[in-house]
């Protein structure tokens, strides 16, 4: 199997779906001839034709509104929002429309739409190229929210998202597009090729939505996380030499409650980690679920590690980013008494 980085794996997923299904089409800002600012759609227009992968105006509300109409017609549009920080102009079309059309029409209409967008920090992108808005979607009934953490999952999850008949927000952790990131910005970037999950089948395959993965097995404490933070959590466990079980949620809604309960009932201790700001972040929902489902197994409060409740500050990126040290500290707190 070829080794792919995240970008190549995502590109391969799109390539496979364009070839398999004439109703799949891609559009968004700079995704056509140029192939996207992160090159995820590189070569797709040349290979599949202008009408299959084309540039759109710089209007996210229009992109999603138009894509919804295409989905209603029967196509499977895949749109790119250049950065998750720029998804807000499309928020009304996502929340009031894409998420509700099946429900309000009692199944008469539905929207098989995939919205891809790079999210998260760690690239010195400043306030508007670093945000993690997943909780603004997990609160909205009618959409699914997916976050891959490695090339193999990225391709399999993206194919599942495109084939899914409901709207999916597909958040791509841009910090790990080119290599896994343990949270040490001062160390050289490892290429994906050194990572086992960079082995990606060339053809069609899926990773089911709603299923978590055990990224690292352990018995002492459970870490619930996703995206870039999966790698940071694993590094934290190794470095602090803590027998932590790291659960890569992969899908946030619907979340794999079974996997969460299984692990927390085993460890009795839990840490929740994400880059997004703490207050009302998705970690709050995870805390609530864990204490609702595992209260009598919990031996310590669930610890949340998250971005501080501020905008993402350019020069303080590494003070802001919840790195291995903060996760290790949280694991230790979870392991107290």
């Amino acid at each position, binding site marked *: 199997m070829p080794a792919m980085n995240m970008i190549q794996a995502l590109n391969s997923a799109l390539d496979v779906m364009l070839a398999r299904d004439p109703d799949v089409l891609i559009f968004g800002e700079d995704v056509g001839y140029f192939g996207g600012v992160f090159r995820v759609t590189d070569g797709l227009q040349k290979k599949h034709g202008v009408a299959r992968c084309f540039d759109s105006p710089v209007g996210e*509300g229009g992109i999603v509104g138009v894509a919804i109409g295409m989905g209603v017609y029967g*196509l499977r549009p895949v749109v790119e929002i250049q950065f998750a920080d720029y998804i807000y102009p499309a928020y009304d*079309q996502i929340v009031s429309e894409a998420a509700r059309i*099946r429900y309000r029409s009692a199944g008469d209409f539905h929207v098989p739409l995939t919205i891809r967008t790079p999210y998260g920090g760690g690239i010195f992108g400043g306030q508007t190229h670093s945000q993690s808005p997943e909780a603004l979607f997990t609160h909205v009934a009618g959409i699914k929210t997916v976050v891959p953490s490695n090339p193999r999952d990225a391709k399999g999850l993206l194919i599942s998202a495109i084939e899914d008949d409901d709207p999916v927000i597909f958040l791509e952790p841009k910090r790990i597009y080119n290599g896994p990131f343990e949270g040490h910005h001062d160390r050289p970037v490892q290429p994906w090729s050194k990572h086992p999950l960079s082995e990606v089948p060339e053809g069609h395959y899926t990773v089911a939505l709603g299923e978590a993965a055990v990224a690292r097995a352990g018995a002492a404490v459970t870490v619930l996380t996703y995206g870039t933070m999966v790698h940071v959590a694993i590094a934290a466990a190794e470095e602090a030499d803590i027998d932590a079980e790291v659960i890569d949620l992969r899908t946030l809604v619907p979340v794999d409650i079974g996997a969460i309960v299984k692990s927390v009932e085993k460890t009795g201790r839990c840490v929740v980690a994400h880059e997004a700001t703490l207050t009302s972040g998705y970690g709050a929902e995870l805390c609530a679920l864990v204490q609702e489902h595992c209260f009598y197994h919990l031996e310590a409060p669930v610890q949340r590690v998250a971005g501080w409740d501020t905008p993402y500050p350019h020069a303080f990126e590494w003070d802001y980013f919840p790195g291995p040290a903060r996760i290790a500290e949280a694991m230790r707190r979870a392991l107290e008494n």
Partner: protein
Amino acid sequence: MRNRGRLSLHIPQPKHRPGDKPDFSNVAVPPAGTLDRPPTDAKARDLAPYSYSLIRVLDEEAKAVGAWNPRLDAEALRKGLRDMVMTRAYDDRMYRAQRQGKISFYMKSTGEEATSVAYASALERDDMCFPSYRQQGLLIARGYPMIDMMCQCYSNTRDPLKGRQLPIMYSSREYGFFTISGNLGTQFPQAVGWAMASAYKGGDRIAASWIGEGATAEGDFHHALNFASIYRAPVILNVVNNQWAISSYQGIAGGEESTFASRAIGYGLPGLRVDGNDFLAVYAVAQWAAERARSNRGATLIELFTYRAEGHSTSDDPDRYRPCDEWKAWPLGDPVDRLKRHLIAIGAWSEKQHQALTEETAMLVRETQREAEAIGTLSEGPKPSKLTMFEDVYRDMPWHLRRQSKQAGA
């Protein structure tokens, strides 16, 4: 160099408020039949004058005159009249049902019937409509069962929308009527996307959408015109300028600085302004735009110049913000009356026939209502199982909704 005059904030105000005598002398009404009909492949730039004038076919004697006269046969005209009368009868009945507490909410289209009914004739049956909440005339003209419209309003066990939607928020894929949104403007770019999909698939179906003049202020109006222009989407974008957005007159939507049809100009699209109470004129422009779209020449923006004869909805009392008899002063009259007079003028209709039609439709609506109420109303009769409330959030019900539906069921 600097002009030291002090600035002041301009806030548009309508000419009349309750108590004032309505006077529409400022509304320019060019005589019918004066504008010629450009070819449907005309350059958008050359069509700018149509954005500022008013396309009219029916003259003062209710004769159809001029190049825009669509020359519809009497049968087609009678169908249009029948559908408009039916729509008005339906509105009156459901309005009363709300007043009697049988439904929670209602919105009439009185005075604006032509702006939807005429499109049902100009469009093909399989063209897709993305309406606002005042195009019930489309469903009626396309023959959607009125009983289903009523059951939707009653949220009873026959409600096709399973009690999930506010009354009048109809939806029917089969009848090419997109599920109405409570959020203004969202349907406009969706219609453009649907039309782009039709073009992408090399089909020949086009889309049409309706938006109120008030809602043109939403960003989605801009997105729709922009995408429609850039990708030459086969879509008809209609602005129903009924002069009011709840209590705000059209000046608050920008209607005093320019026409809504002229918004098309900056996008390089044709913008046609039409007498929205003139069934023939509305049909003619819709037909022109449909032909242009279907022959791959892209979108047209149409301003349907009309008047909202009744309150915004059953939650609204228009006498609080406009002269109560304003509609009577409206210079473009009533679409039903004008089409009726035209049919009589061409000897294809009579007062007697009209009388009969009015009674027959009223009767039919009353009977349908009885039928619907026999099935149930919002307050009385059987309801769909409350567990259906958890369905259709997703295609397949995820664990957390199954869990919640158990909790609700217990």
